[in-house]
Structures are given as C-alpha cells and as structure tokens.
C-alpha cells in the first residue's frame, strides 16, 4: 500500500457476538464519506463482516488492519485460533465446523468464506493448524 493510505486497526474480542461487526460498519461509514461507489462499499462490508464473524466464532477473536488508498481497500484479519486444516474444503459452500450452539445463533451455514470469495477481488488465506489464520481481502475501488 502507498504511504499515503488511510490505516485503521481493530481488535475483535472472541466470543462476543454483540460486538461482532464493529470493524465492518466503521469501515463502511468511512467509505461512504469518501464517496466510494456504493457497490464497492457493499462488497467490502459484506466480506469484512464474514471475516470478522469467523474470527469470533472459530478463533476466539483477533485483530484487523484496514488500508484504504485511491485504488483499493486491503483488509488483513489475523488470529491465533486453531487454524484451518483443509482450506479447499473450508472454501466450499455449506462446509462448516460450527458447533450446535453457534448454529442456533444463525451462523454456521458454511457460506462465510464462499461469500468472501464472491464479494472480494482477491482473497488470500494463510493458515497453520495450531498457530492461527491470516486472511487478506482486497476490494478494488471502481472510479
């Protein structure tokens, strides 16, 4: 990212559903103030929200960094959770390891990662079992 990009940092607490979505709605507000094309704002906030929720549900929280410049929005979601054993499997629609309890809350349809893929221009997942996961999301800004 260029030196001039805007940078935001968020700490996502684990297992706190009431606060999940804070990063994505804050970024959404900023993007609207920047006059970014609504469809771009939507893409980013849908995918960032899914990433945020995944950190809460599967990884006991983590940290998010977001950079915005005039070409793209980059979000890096880093956690020290259990990691993803089989990324290819995790990317499949409907595949989920969510607990019964989490499903009861309306999550765990196995649609988060596929949606992140669909709504971002680039999705990079770097995960090591027992160490953690780093998800990088990129959404290009349409002018």
């Amino acid at each position, binding site marked *: 990212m260029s030196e*001039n990009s*805007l940078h935001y940092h968020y700490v996502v607490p684990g297992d706190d559903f009431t606060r999940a979505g804070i990063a994505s709605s804050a970024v*959404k507000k900023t993007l609207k103030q*920047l*006059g970014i094309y609504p469809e771009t704002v939507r893409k980013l906030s*849908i995918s960032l929200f899914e990433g945020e929720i995944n950190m809460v549900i599967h990884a006991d929280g983590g940290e998010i960094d977001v950079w915005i410049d005039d070409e793209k929005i980059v979000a890096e979601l880093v956690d020290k959770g259990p990691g993803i054993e089989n990324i290819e499997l995790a990317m499949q629609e409907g595949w989920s390891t969510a607990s019964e309890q989490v499903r009861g809350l309306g999550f765990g349809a196995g649609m988060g990662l596929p949606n992140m893929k669909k709504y971002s221009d680039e999705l990079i997942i770097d995960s090591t079992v027992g160490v953690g996961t780093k998800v990088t999301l990129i959404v290009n800004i349409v002018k």
Partner: protein
Amino acid sequence: MAEYFHSVTLDKDACRGCITCVKRCPTEAIRVRDGKARIIAERCIDCGECIRVCPHHAKHAVTDPLSEIEKYKYKVVLPPPSLFGQYKRQEDLELIRAALCELGFDAVYEVAAAAELVSDATRRMLEEGELIKPVISSACPAVLRLIRIRFPHLLKNVLPLSAPMEVAARLAREKAVAVTGFKPEEIGIVFITPCPAKATAIKNPMGTEISGVDLAVSVSEIYPALLTAMNKCALEGTGPDTSQSGRMGLSWGNSGGEAAATFTVRYLAADGIENVIKVLEEMEDDRLADQDFVELNACPAGCVGGVLNIENPYVAATRMKHLRSYRPVACNNLSGDSVPKELLWDAEVAPIDALRLDPLPERSLEMMREIEKIEKSLYGLDCGSCGAPSCRALAEDIVLGFSTEDACIYLLKDKVDAVRSSMLSLKIDSRDKSGDK
C-alpha cells in the same frame, strides 16, 4: 434549488445549548454554536427525535394553524389511523368523524381507507414478482429521507407507491370536486399530522412533484378542540356508521400493520429510528435477503408514536387494537387487475449526497487523513462541550471548515497551561538576567 423546508425548527430563546439533542440526533445533524443548537439542513430527516428529547422544549414542528382552513370553500380533513388511538372513552370511529365536521370540516376522508388500497397494490406487485426483495415500505418520510442520505444503495428496494396520505388526498379531492362542482383549488385538503416528517413531506414531496395535501395541522393543536367537539357529539348522539376503513387500514397506525397486510409471512417490522438504522445496515450487507417485506417506522411503535401525538404510543396502540376488533377486515379494494398508475410514484426518488467529504475522491482521501490525525490529537471523551456529538464529529467539522480545535475545552486548557508555564519560565529568565548585572 429552493431551500429545503424542514418542519423541525429551533426556538432560539428557549434553547440553552445543553447538547442533549446533539448527542441524540440519529444523523449527527445538530451542533451547538455560540450557545445555541443549529440544525444542518442537508442531514436532517425530520424524525422529531430532538423534539422528543429536548428538556427545554426548544425544538418544535412547524405546521399550519387550524384557522388556515378558512381559505377554502370546501374543506376535507384526512385523519391518519393513529388519530383514532388518541382519545379515551371512544367507542367507534364515527365519534371522531362527527367531531371533525363539528370543527368546521365539510367532509372526512380516512387515510386508513387509502392505506387499504396501497396494501392491495403492494400485494399485487409482490405477486407480480417484479419488485426487488426485500421490499422496503415507503410510507414513513423520515425513513425514506434517511435511505436517500445514508443507504442510497437500498433505494432500489423501496416500494415505488405513494404513501396513503397522498393517495387519500388525491381521492378526496376528486370526490369533493364531484360532490360540489367546485374547482379543485377551491377545495382544501387538510392532513392531521402526527409528526414533523409528514409536514415536511407535504412541502417537499418524494415520489411525486406536488403533494395533494394543502395543509398539515398537528394532532397536538387539534386535540383539545376535537375533544370538546367529541363530548358534544357524544351527548347529541352520532348518526349511522359512515367510517370508511377496516382493520387492515387502521392497523397501519401501528408498527407491523402495513407488513401484515402484505399477506406474506416473511416480513420484518422495525420501529424507532435507531432500530431502523440497524435494520438498514443489515439489509445493506445482504443479511436480510430471506425477507419479502420490511416495514420501517421512525417512531417507536409506529405512527402512534409520532412526536406530535398526545397519548402514550403503547396505550394508543392498545386502544386501536380494541377499536379495530369491531371493524370488517377491509373496506377498500382496487378495481381491475392491475395497479392504477395514480398509485405509483411519478417522480424519481434520488440519493442525496450529504455524507461525502468532497466531490473529488483524492480530495476526500486527503481530508479523511486529516480527520484521522486530528481525531488522534483529541482526548476521545466525546463530552460534547465543543458542540459536536463526538470527538470524531469535531475532527470532521474542523476539516470541513465548520469548527476549530479551540472549540475543544481540553485542547484549549492544554494551550493555556503551555502559555502559563512558558510565562513562568520567562520570569525566571529575566530574574536570572537581572542577577547578572
């Protein structure tokens, strides 16, 4: 463009600059400057929240005085469904209808009757399947303006039908012309408004060029006179039931009434402006995609919670439930198979660009960097003493040129402290020098 009329206004003398409204405004549209609140016109949605919370009653809604009806040769009053929930000891709709005529109106046209037509049209359009789901109700003008400002992406989901008030106005005028033979402009269409948003929507209509309503008289103004008239009519006894609406139309006065009348089971109804914002946030991110219809009302409990009403919203809602139970399901249906085009919007409802920092993207980015920098230099107390709702809002105001860092009393104190200590060190310096001599 002519200046946008807002019904919500400030009584400068009564305002104490306490920042209660600044903190509670859902669109951050109020600032205190020179000790008085000011409303930022582009951002205000006339939801009436500031009227509700002002401890000094300095915010009020501009509406038309009842005496204005004398301008017209033939006067038709449009009572909204919520009006029927305002009075105790009221057995039926007829009493209010009779009392309205007692006050000088020549005819009554219930907004609830028009609401039943709008419901019928909504059902047909949902069935035809050409609407983008979830369909968002367009009846509350405060919500509609909020969507235009903050959720422009969702405008495509908004039901492109006139609000019941407008439909009622149009039909009432047609009927009055037919009955009297007067010219349309000799007829006065008077809406009894529960809220400033409707009064604003009459001056600045959305979805149509010109509103069919001539005057908006507030419920709070008409309330006492109507009560006296009702007592008189109750003694004299009312004639046969002439009321025009059924349960379906009357239920539009409560949150959920409009949605239930769509006959879909996949609906959501939210009321209270903060809840409405949360729902719109969810919708914007596709998280309510499984719903067919979303009804949103700026006021708690729906229009019964309109800030110009007298009765507690929940009491009024309960009373209306009782009143409705004596009514048929509906009294009005559209004739023919299609939705008449008079019910459809005939003017574009466009986004309002009030959030963007600057029309130039590069400039916006630069300003945002500046905002972040200033925000970091502030204390993050969100105390409101500067007149802005939060430190973040002050940072934005500074960069937009509406305020300065000196507005922050903590930064000012730091400055004063710095000056004081440099003055103290000055003194020591000069003593040292004199000692040298």
